[in-house]
């Protein structure tokens, strides 16, 4: 029993230490984001890898989400004779919840895992040590471009997801179920305000910070992992952990932001 309690205590301390390392890592990068030299080309490259290459999957996923929302809500709203409110509900759901959350989860799976594995392998192969030994700051050289690119990309991708999702809802309700196009659009214009757009924007920026901090941070502190294994096994483990940790943190943060901002 005492052994179990002490094990639990050790795990708790390890978890606190781990979160501390990740937080320090994040603040280190944030501090260096605003000091020269600025690597525009590296940011553009990351922008392409994280953002441009994710557009197709984001469009496909958000179109599906919009279609499903429109389809499900139509049958519910039809019972109460309020199908003209479909545009409002689909748009609000996409802008404040579905858009930021779905987009972030997709980016974690597509780019977050890749960033974590990339940095993890660099740690494991001593490439980060090599940078240090060449007097090149790995935070500035590697992390800052990824942070800038993710922080700029995620809100843009969320905006694309919102528009495509609303369009998906439009197809489901107007094209498939003959809801009047005007009532769909009018209810959307009438109910979506700046406050809702702000919620979406704040969420997308905070989620972007979570994605890039957890993904790159987990790879960066691979060598501090208490389980000790470096190499392929260590990289695969931290990548899995990064995906799970970032996803759960985003869902939790989504609740907190919604609770404070609604």
């Amino acid at each position, binding site marked *: 029993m005492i052994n179990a309690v002490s094990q639990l205590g050790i795990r708790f301390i390890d978890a606190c230490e781990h979160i501390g390392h990740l937080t320090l890592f994040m603040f280190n990068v944030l501090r260096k984001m605003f000091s020269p030299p600025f690597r525009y080309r590296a940011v553009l490259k990351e922008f392409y890898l994280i953002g441009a290459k994710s557009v197709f999957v984001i469009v496909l996923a958000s179109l599906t989400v919009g279609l499903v929302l429109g389809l499900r809500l139509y049958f519910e709203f039809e019972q109460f004779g309020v199908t003209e409110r479909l545009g409002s509900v689909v748009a609000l759901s996409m802008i404040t919840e579905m858009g930021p959350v779905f987009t972030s989860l997709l980016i974690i799976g597509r780019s977050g895992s890749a960033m974590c594995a990339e940095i993890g*392998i*660099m740690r494991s*192969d*001593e*490439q980060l*040590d*090599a940078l*240090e*030994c*060449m*007097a*090149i*700051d790995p935070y500035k*050289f590697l992390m800052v471009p990824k942070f800038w690119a993710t922080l700029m990309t995620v809100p843009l991708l969320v905006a694309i997801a919102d528009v495509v999702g609303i369009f998906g809802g439009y197809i489901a309700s107007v094209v498939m179920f003959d809801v009047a196009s005007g009532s769909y659009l009018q209810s959307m214009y009438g109910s979506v305000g700046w406050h809702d757009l702000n919620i979406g924007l704040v969420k997308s920026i905070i989620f972007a910070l979570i994605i890039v901090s957890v993904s790159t941070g987990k790879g960066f502190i691979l060598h501090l992992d208490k389980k000790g294994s470096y190499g392929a096994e260590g990289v695969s483990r931290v990548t899995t952990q990064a995906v799970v940790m970032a996803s759960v943190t985003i869902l939790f943060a989504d609740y907190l932001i919604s609770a404070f901002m609604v």
Partner: protein
Amino acid sequence: MHFEMSLMEPDLQLNNTVINVVNLSTHYRDRKILDNINFDVRRGEVMVIMGSSGSGKSTLLRTMLGLTMPTEGEINIMGVDVCNASRNELYKLRRSIGVAFQGGALFGNLSLIENVSLPLLEHTNLDINTVKIMSRMKLDMMNLSGFDSLMPAELSGGMVKRAALARAVIMDPELLFFDEPSAGLDPVVAAELDEYILELKSALDMSIVVITHELESALRIADRITILDKGEVVVCGSVEEVKQSKLEKVQNLLNRRPSREQLSPDEYLDVLTRAQAAKPHRGHIND
């Protein structure tokens, strides 16, 4: 502690020393990785740090590079106290040293010439053509001309090591660290690398620290050798001094003898039984 060190006149030592390691110890929890290490590296010499696997060579290298902090002790490299230096001071020092890592540590997304020219691009204001010319000169020196555009994944083990060496010397450092130059290479390529190290020493007048467990390579290139065992310096001296050392551990290493006699099956069983009896509450032997 068994310890032998060649004596030098203090003044000469002071002027000529590029690395001075004093009472260096590194512990990981209860385990001693390095224990009271003392040695120095003189200007223009090749110092080989040898030892069997797990003797603390890599930890010593990482500590000298300022990548790991020691538990106690001092490391002075070219006048900089590595253990107490600020990040900026360390970066300034690192611009005048080169490091070639065991696995090369080349960046997989950069071509060979991009890898080699990276320090120049980061630390100088030279135009891109001059950087390319200088990088090609170093690649030529390492017999890698014509492979500029290849990616690290397309290079052989020996080419990776030579590329890492080219990158390490691109800034013409005063001091070069080379971790396991011949590990994983066939004897011919390993001998080639040894030649490159000797060329660098004579042509560029570098002080070179080589970490290795390859005896032949060490004897070929070393001016002085430091032998580590279980985190302690067993001997530090010239090649001849090391060869003539009477210490059993040194002779075992030089003659490639296992440090412990092979146990007979009965003796081994006896050891196992005693170990198990010592820990009756556990179902397995941890030793």
